[in-house]
């Protein structure tokens, strides 16, 4: 029982991180109809940034984490401005561009950071006993807490602020939104940056638990896409529920079936969803 609960808790921790990463994808798809294939690379870069900022440049990990996310935010803004903006109106171009970019970034990561897994230092050490059942690493608990904080922040941003409302308006009717006085160029750019920053946040949160490698990025992008499809396009709630389901199933599957098949579970779920509920758990049936 204690063992099961531990795997389940692992699933929850990974699940909320999945959710953050998936919301990044969902946000960009929702407003710009752009699928960012370089999502996983941004996630990996953030992990490496926080590793090098804290180990090579000697910054405290507490500073290195948000700073890495900020760098990724800037990279996202730059990407939108230079590469994505000229493609608006033709989804195929942006698809090809982000796909190519993902390959370029992955290989740059290999070149710059090398092929070895890197793990930034943990913020805290030790473990805590959970309900007297099992010991659980403090770093993981902290990661869980930070992730929940980020999710609440994103929900607040989208539901309550002018920025969030314009994001929702644009994703429903771009032209009408601009007739409300919304500068959708600016909102697009910030949203792309935010989507990238969410990938980055997931990256810096997970890196101290699971080291990042340049070649791990495709699996990260795919996981995020599976979560978005599972939860339903354009639904934040869907990203959270989808992320948790995937995180829990992958961890239980890895524990009780085989670690070898960890990623297979994601795709079995994806296929089942596409067959029986193609609009996802919380998506709108069209």
């Amino acid at each position: 029982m204690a063992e099961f609960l531990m795997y389940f808790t692992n699933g929850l921790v990974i699940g909320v991180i999945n959710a953050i990463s998936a919301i990044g994808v969902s946000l960009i798809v929702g407003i710009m109809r752009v699928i960012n294939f370089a999502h996983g690379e941004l996630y990996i870069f953030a992990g490496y940034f926080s590793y090098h900022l804290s180990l090579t440049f000697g910054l405290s990990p507490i500073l290195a984490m948000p700073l890495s996310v900020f760098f990724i935010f800037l990279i996202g803004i730059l990407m939108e401005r230079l590469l994505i903006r000229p493609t608006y109106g033709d989804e195929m171009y942006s698809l090809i561009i982000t796909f190519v970019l993902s390959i370029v970034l992955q290989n740059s990561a290999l070149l710059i950071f090398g092929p070895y897994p890197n793990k930034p230092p943990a913020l805290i050490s030790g473990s805590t006993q959970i309900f007297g059942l099992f010991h659980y690493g403090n770093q993981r608990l902290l990661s869980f807490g930070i992730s929940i904080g980020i999710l609440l922040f994103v929900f607040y941003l989208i539901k309550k602020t002018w920025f969030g409302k314009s994001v929702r308006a644009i994703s429903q009717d771009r032209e009408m939104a601009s007739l409300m006085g919304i500068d959708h160029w600016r909102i697009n750019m910030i949203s792309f940056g935010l989507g990238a920053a969410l990938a980055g946040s997931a990256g810096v949160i997970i890196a101290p638990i699971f080291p990042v490698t340049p070649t791990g990025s495709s699996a990260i992008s795919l996981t995020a896409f599976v979560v978005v499809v599972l939860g339903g396009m354009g639904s934040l709630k869907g990203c959270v529920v989808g992320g948790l389901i995937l995180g829990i199933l992958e961890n239980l599957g890895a524990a009780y079936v085989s670690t070898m098949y960890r990623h297979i579970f994601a795709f079995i779920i994806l296929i089942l969803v596409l067959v029986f509920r193609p609009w996802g758990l919380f998506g709108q049936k069209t």
Partner: protein
Amino acid sequence: MLEIKAIDVFRGEAQILWNLQMKVEKGEVVTVLGANGAGKTTLVESILGIHHPKKGEILFMDEEISQKPPYLITQMGISCVPEGRRIFKEMTVYENLEMGAYPAKARPLLKTTQDWVFSLFPILKERRNQIAGTLSGGEQQMLAIGRALMSRPMLLLLDELSLGLSPKITKGIYGTIRKLHQEGVTMLLIEQNATMALLHSQRGYILETGRIALQGSSQELLGNEHIRKAYLGM
């Protein structure tokens, strides 16, 4: 207030508006009549900055706006009730109204403007927390008008106000247009429902294949033989 000076507008390769000239003065209600394909919607979209004329100018408050993007034109004080209403269906009634008050000038007035809109359309107040997509057609039209008013526009464009609405609801909506006129809102009505529009406006333009075919006071136009045949079905 609005002056369109000899514009040529293209959609892709096709020229839709030819040397079009018209004017709306402050406080006026002006009707543009035209059959399907006459270029009414293109005219609206040119004023709003969705299409940019290849030739000619559009002046709003003496400022040339024809090459500006839609969001700047809205911020300057033109707002629209588009054909087919196009409310934000997944948002609540209240959020739709809020979106209308997006321009920086309108935000501080949000509460007062909203009370004004609720006094014009009490039903919207009742339904303020309802998802806008679940409203009836007439209510959605009211919401679209309310949303457009939330920006405190100097000029309001109303495209095909009566489209898809029952005569009774159309009458109610035009009652509101009359009220808005009395409160001094300047409006441009783009309509197929000629009688209603002409009865509620001072001047009118007849648009035929992208050109102004006829213009005059609404009274004159209502009495014009050609218009009675072509647009009023009499």
